[in-house]
């Protein structure tokens, strides 16, 4: 039996039974539905999608922090660890489970958003739109990793609060305070005006993946020292 698969399965079932999976998916789908169902111009639709996706990603980070921390506090991670499942595998299992749910949610937002955006402007490039959502998905990985990092070191409430605050600060900071850095959600707002949108998406996605990798490494190091 693959240990990572076991942890992913347990994490998915825990997310499902505790309604956290539903909360995350509902958050993403609600964003897409709001964009698709409320008639608006293309710039307004893109702004709605960007803000909504950012909010849903922050919810994802909060869920990641709560889940990891609660699993530690209730001894569930310890139960696995005393059965020779490494702490790294426990972290990887939770990360994969949360990524699967988030990517599914973002795919739904992207599809609903595309339906709305392509109706408002038939000239919008589907490849650029898809690439931008791919980059946003990479950004969501980074925020999930950030949530897991806080979950590895703090108790549930503190971890959740810290994850929400840090995620909001990162998004708002990069969006408003760093005008030369194109965050994927920020680039989505300007999608129709970008001269090379795919290049911007690839850059944003790459930077987000690098940030996510760094945070996963930090979370792994933190969990190695944490009490389970």
């Amino acid at each position: 039996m693959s240990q990572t698969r076991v942890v992913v399965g347990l994490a998915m079932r825990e997310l499902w039974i505790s309604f956290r999976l539903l909360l995350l998916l509902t958050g993403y789908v609600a964003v897409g539905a709001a964009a698709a169902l409320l008639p608006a111009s293309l710039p307004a639709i893109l702004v709605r999608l960007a803000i909504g996706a950012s909010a849903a990603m922050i919810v994802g980070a909060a869920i990641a922090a709560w889940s990891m921390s609660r699993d530690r506090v209730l001894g569930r991670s310890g139960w696995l660890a005393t059965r020779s499942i490494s702490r790294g595998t426990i972290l990887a299992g939770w990360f994969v489970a949360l990524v699967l749910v988030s990517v599914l949610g973002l795919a739904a937002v992207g599809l609903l958003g595309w339906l709305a955006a392509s109706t408002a402007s038939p000239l919008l490039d589907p490849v650029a739109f898809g690439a931008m959502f791919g980059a946003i998905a990479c950004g969501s990985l980074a925020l999930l990793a950030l949530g897991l990092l806080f979950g590895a070191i703090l108790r549930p409430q503190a971890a959740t609060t810290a994850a929400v605050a840090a995620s909001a600060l990162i998004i708002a900071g990069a969006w408003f305070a760093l005008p030369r850095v194109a965050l994927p959600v920020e680039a989505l707002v300007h999608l129709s005006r970008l001269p090379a949108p795919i290049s911007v998406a690839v850059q944003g996605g790459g930077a987000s993946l690098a940030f996510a990798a760094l945070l996963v490494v930090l979370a792994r190091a933190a969990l190695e020292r944490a009490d389970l």
Partner: protein
Amino acid sequence: MPATGGASLTSSTPDALWSAPSLRVLRPSAVSCTDLRRGRELDRCTLSVPVGGRLLVVSEPDTTASTLLRVLAGLSRADRGEVRIAGSTDPTATGWGRRMAYLGPESGLHSWMTPLEALHLAAGLLGLSHDERARRIDRALRWTGITPAMTERAVSRGGPELEQRTGLASVLIAEPEVLLLDEPLRAIEATERAGLLRIPGRRLTILLASRDPASELGLVAHVAYLRNGRVELIAPVGDLDQAGLPLSHAGIAELAALKAAERRLRRADPE
């Protein structure tokens, strides 16, 4: 029986070696820790428990005993020091990972799990064959008194008693050589709890951390007393009787004080 400090004989060779007459006399160490430090809780804590030993661990403050067991189980990290279980310092599955089991005050089970699910998961992680899995699950269920009607009920619906029984069953499935019990089965009625914790096996080594030593009467042969993060006493339970002291926190602390005074006297006047 256990002795603090000094060299301890350890072995990682199980079955064939244990049956050798010479080692039965020497009694290799099942659990040993040397100079463990962790914040203010453990301070150069050194302990050695031979194979088959059943040791009650009591501490001042109360949390230290739990911390020691959690460090031995790999759930909490020590700042310094070495832990050796069954002769190995490697906590992975190829080292002592599958030869040691831990049961704490929290079962660590997901509340939606049924006992059967939890036991199949525990057995699956051990990589047991189908027949062996069935045999061990059946044995664990019978030992812990989980009836067939309970096996399909989520542990959250069976209350803390079912959860703790399932926790114990999932530990027994591994048939460990070393069992670390930290305030286990408190939700279960005292007499039945004592019966459940009287786990057979001459080679099974048990360390039991408890804040209520009186409730562990008959379960342990020796008692260890930790104060300020250090082992202050390891003695047979019979020493308490001889000194006319009860198996209680105060009794054990008083025995530790008596033994310390004896040691001081012996040092002052070797004759």
